[in-house]
């Protein structure tokens, strides 16, 4: 893939602007805007997790919605069935996602391109089918009545939309910092080296399988966090969240935003979600428009909106 971006400086600048924008909209927006921002933020967290393995690890996953589902269902089941406070359930669900990914990753991370895609797709669909029939997980009805974490001891009331979307933005910032750290660190650069030239990476003694399994696991943990936040936002979860099309939409978001840029993933998630939302209000063939737009991006702008920003910045400075 030639379209993978890497530019730590610009990444931080774009991130700061995006966060400031979301804070401003959050403060001055109404109930609906706040809910919408929380939704976009959660999607962005998911997009970042997908972006990380697709760009740095070269592992394009069509089964990543499985981890979104694992995070969501683990939070729901732990808090409703076992009475564990939602805030702790969230951490448990991240850990569960991490471990499941570590085990799966051990077997699949060395698969190449299409095989990796197909295996993740198969795993995701298996999980989806299981969720659909599982009594514990509520089958096709899903689980309802999940409460938001109680942070009243910190004087935070997450049931207020304003506070809750700040809470999701807080998590987005944490995820962004974590992933940028990993990307710039020797581990991330080595992952990038493996993607660019796997044989050469072996010849310098890289621990290919271990790096990739760690990356896959970190990414799955973040996807689980996104899933957990999703149930906290909506209070219910249905099997649709684990369908492979959710992973597909995630991939569309990162391609539109610019693969590998991290803040581009947030940009992509925002743009795609906003267009989806606005268009579906006006016309009912909005999917066609999005599909067409996506094809244009792939044909003419493979580095996505990120590439556009990079070029504009270059022009301005020269």
């Amino acid at each position: 893939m030639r379209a993978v971006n890497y530019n730590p400086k610009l990444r931080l600048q774009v991130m700061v602007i995006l966060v400031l924008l979301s804070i401003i909209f959050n403060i001055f927006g109404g109930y609906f805007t706040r809910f919408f921002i929380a939704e976009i933020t959660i999607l962005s967290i998911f997009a970042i997790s997908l972006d990380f393995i697709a760009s740095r690890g070269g592992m394009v996953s069509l089964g990543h919605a499985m981890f979104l589902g694992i995070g969501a269902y683990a939070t729901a089941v732990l808090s409703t069935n076992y009475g564990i406070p939602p805030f702790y359930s969230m951490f448990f669900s991240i850990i569960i996602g991490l471990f499941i990914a570590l085990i799966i990753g051990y077997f699949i991370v060395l698969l190449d391109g299409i095989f990796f895609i197909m295996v993740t797709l198969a795993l995701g669909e298996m999980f989806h089918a299981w969720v659909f029939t599982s009594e514990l997980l509520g089958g096709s009805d899903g689980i309802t009545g999940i409460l938001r974490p109680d942070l009243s001891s910190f004087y935070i009331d997450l049931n207020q939309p304003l506070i809750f979307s700040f809470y999701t933005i807080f998590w987005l910032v944490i995820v962004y910092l974590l992933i940028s750290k990993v990307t710039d660190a020797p581990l991330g650069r080595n992952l990038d080296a493996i993607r660019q030239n796997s044989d050469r990476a072996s010849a310098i003694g890289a621990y290919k399988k271990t790096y990739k399994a760690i990356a896959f696991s970190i990414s799955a943990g973040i996807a689980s966090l996104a899933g957990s936040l999703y149930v906290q936002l909506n209070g219910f979860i249905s099997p649709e969240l684990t369908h492979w099309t959710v992973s597909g939409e995630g991939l569309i978001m990162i391609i539109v935003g610019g693969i590998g840029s991290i803040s581009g993933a947030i940009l992509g998630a925002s743009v795609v979600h906003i267009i989806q939302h606005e268009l579906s209000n006006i016309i009912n063939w909005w999917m066609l428009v999005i599909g067409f737009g996506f094809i244009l991006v792939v044909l003419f702008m493979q580095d996505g909106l990120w590439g556009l920003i990079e070029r504009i910045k270059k022009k301005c400075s020269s």
Partner: protein
Amino acid sequence: MILKLSNINKSFGSTIVLEDINITSEKKECLAIIGPNGAGKSTLFKVISGIIKQDNGYVEFNSKSVNALNVEERARLGISQSFQKNSLFLEMTVKESLMIACSHKYKVSFNFIKPLYKNNFISEDAIKIAKDIGLQNYLDIKSEFLSYGLQRQLELGIAIACNPRLLLLDEPTAGMSPAETKDIINLIKKLSKEYSIIIVEHDMEVIYNLADKIYVLDRGKLIFEGSPNAVKNSELVQKVYLGI
């Protein structure tokens, strides 16, 4: 003794590529394997580095068998290689490529907190290696934009950045102009003072200036071994090369 190959055999289907190869290499020795095209040089090279498994026979490195180890594991023991065709991290700059190779030398490749570019000792080391291979003026250029000859130099640089105990060079001058070839030969000469080197080459002129000992390979068999002078004067070798 740094490397010992005993009774190596390898065939692809019914074609015998290597037949009963025995080679020993001493520390700090520059050893060359030469032979005409199709002699099995590259296969032998891959057997040493672990890319190809031999059918039978033993590869010993530092008096320990490395038969069961793959490329990555052999690289970690200190068998470092440069490829016949340039094999680089094309989207990375020269400095970054060298730093990544160095990250294994300093065992920080699992660090996921501190940015690679902030590791000062690695960065200094990478700059030092870049100076050694003559790329100090190209540090921030992406590998894909380097000329072929410079890429060849970087290829060598990445191999030495892993802190090798044995350096395997597969036709280091392949496809280079005479002037560039001269540069590379001087570079390898400099390196041969520090490292144990095995060079695989089909151009004899390159080797005469470098090697302490030469093995001549023809159709999968070792037909001659000796000093460069002995090889030069050997009728058998001339016959193989010139086809008389």
